[in-house]
């Protein structure tokens, strides 16, 4: 089983930067978030980037964007290029195909997120050098490592579920991005409504946020994401039916 997952990972890794356009396009898409979250924001925030929880932005955004870009390829891409049925007709088990594909997407999102954290650290130390090396506190570092992994897993779980049933990569990408950003849009609308209700409401909400320990919020977010991600993988495993995939 492990050997088969590694085999699928070998193929997925080979195709990771080759599908969906030129290498330049892939590099461009990778470089923009890296510069934004690894250089620009840390340079702007200075010591606050390593001492506060600002770096969490990278741990959420980088896996969301990068996994969100590659995971629609997993099944919709194979279907679009007519390679899926040949893969299904091989001796590989359902789990090997599914988890081999997911593992590469998660690994890609997570590794780049960690690299961005290190890049941010380097940027802060160079741009705001005061004679002493600045590091993340253990709590912040651990939060970043865990949250970026869970976020990558969540996006991979959601993306693979959508990709299993999508006819095209474009369709899968649009659906995935819609499903990901819809909650953010809803939150924005709620914020606007609250603003309309007068300054008193916003002050109360600000006070509420100020009284909450960010570490606790991150812990709760990680716990919720872990549960949701497990649910997504379980559903994807159930939905992975060779007959359905052959007929789609």
């Amino acid at each position, binding site marked *: 089983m492990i050997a088969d997952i590694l*085999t699928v990972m070998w193929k997925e890794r*080979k195709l990771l930067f080759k599908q969906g356009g030129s290498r330049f396009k892939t590099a461009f898409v990778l470089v923009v978030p890296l510069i934004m979250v690894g250089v620009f924001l840390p340079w702007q925030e200075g010591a606050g980037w390593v001492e506060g929880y600002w770096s969490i932005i990278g741990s959420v955004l980088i896996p969301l964007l990068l996994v969100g870009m590659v995971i629609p390829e997993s099944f919709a891409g194979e279907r679009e290029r007519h*390679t899926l049925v040949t893969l299904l007709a091989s001796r590989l088990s359902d789990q090997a195909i599914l988890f081999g594909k997911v593992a590469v997407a998660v690994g890609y999102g997570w590794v780049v997120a960690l690299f961005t954290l290190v890049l941010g650290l380097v940027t802060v130390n160079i741009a705001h050098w005061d004679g002493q090396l600045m590091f993340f506190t253990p709590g912040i570092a651990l939060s970043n490592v865990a949250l970026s992994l869970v976020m990558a897993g969540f996006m991979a779980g959601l993306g693979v579920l959508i990709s299993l049933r999508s006819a095209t990569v474009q369709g899968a990408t649009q659906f995935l991005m819609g499903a990901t950003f819809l909650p953010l849009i809803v939150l924005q609308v709620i914020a606007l409504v609250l603003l309309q209700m007068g300054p008193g409401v916003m002050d109360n909400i600000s006070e509420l946020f100020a009284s909450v320990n960010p570490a606790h919020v991150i812990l709760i977010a990680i716990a919720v994401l872990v549960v949701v991600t497990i649910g997504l993988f379980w559903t994807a495993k159930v939905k992975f039916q060779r007959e359905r995939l052959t007929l789609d």
Partner: protein
Amino acid sequence: MAEVAIRIDNLKRYFNSVKAVDGLSLEVPAGTIFGFLGPNGSGKTTTINLLLGLLEPTDGRAEILGFDTRTQANEVRANIGALLEYPGIYEQMSAEENLEFYGRVWRMSDTERQSRIKELLTQIGLWERREERVVKWSRGMKQQLAMARALMHHPHLVFLDEPTAGLDVVAATTIREDLATLVEREGVTVFMTTHNMSEAEKLCSQVAVIRAGKLVALGAPDALRRRAGNPQIEVVGNGFSESVLNLLRARPEVATVELHADRLSIHLSEETDTAPLVSLMVNAGVQIEEVHRGKASLEEVFMTLMEEER
């Protein structure tokens, strides 16, 4: 290996009211190239998908190399090779990487994989281009590579779904030659769907014909020709008067007689000797230059079978 590579017993697959495969029963002996013929939409691809365990039968059963397709689908897929409706090649990878991947899928060792890749790509004349991305290749070359992939792990049985469909004459001939050579060298059983009758005639030792999911004929191409296509005689010469034609029409073994300029076609109703008919014409004053005895082509047999079913 089992003497019967494929055993199908009353296999059915319905899609709502559509009977894609309807009570199919046949056996494919090991070590043969078996042609599965039928017009478009007759159920050929559905049958292959059922045999690979990719689809569940509505009823009936099939055994591949002794494994039940319903309960032992993983074992079935572990022991076969397949070139399905599309080549299934990863076009952004090189030819070598494509074969490398499927070699890994079938758990071949590094050394085994490397020597097999070289052997197969050399055999099909693509070894020098092994590092090129397949996306630049012609359709025929992709199909050659897909066939090499199907044979990569030395399977006992290979399924080929219309391997020459959509290829030009040269590419199709190359594929047929590659197939014949590889099959002869490797001794595999081949189950091949096609609607190309001349291809089936050249390659297959046994053929089955299906229409609307039902088996309409099964046997060696020669036996099918004898069964469905009546023999005929072509005579080239002079002096085919109306009285000669009437003499021929009066013979019990003659079904029809047609005259086109100096060429007379005599369709026989049964297998019979040609000599008495030739003597009859010579005695009636016909000057004969050539006599050909012909059999119906598999294509004619196929058309006859399709007409009969209507």
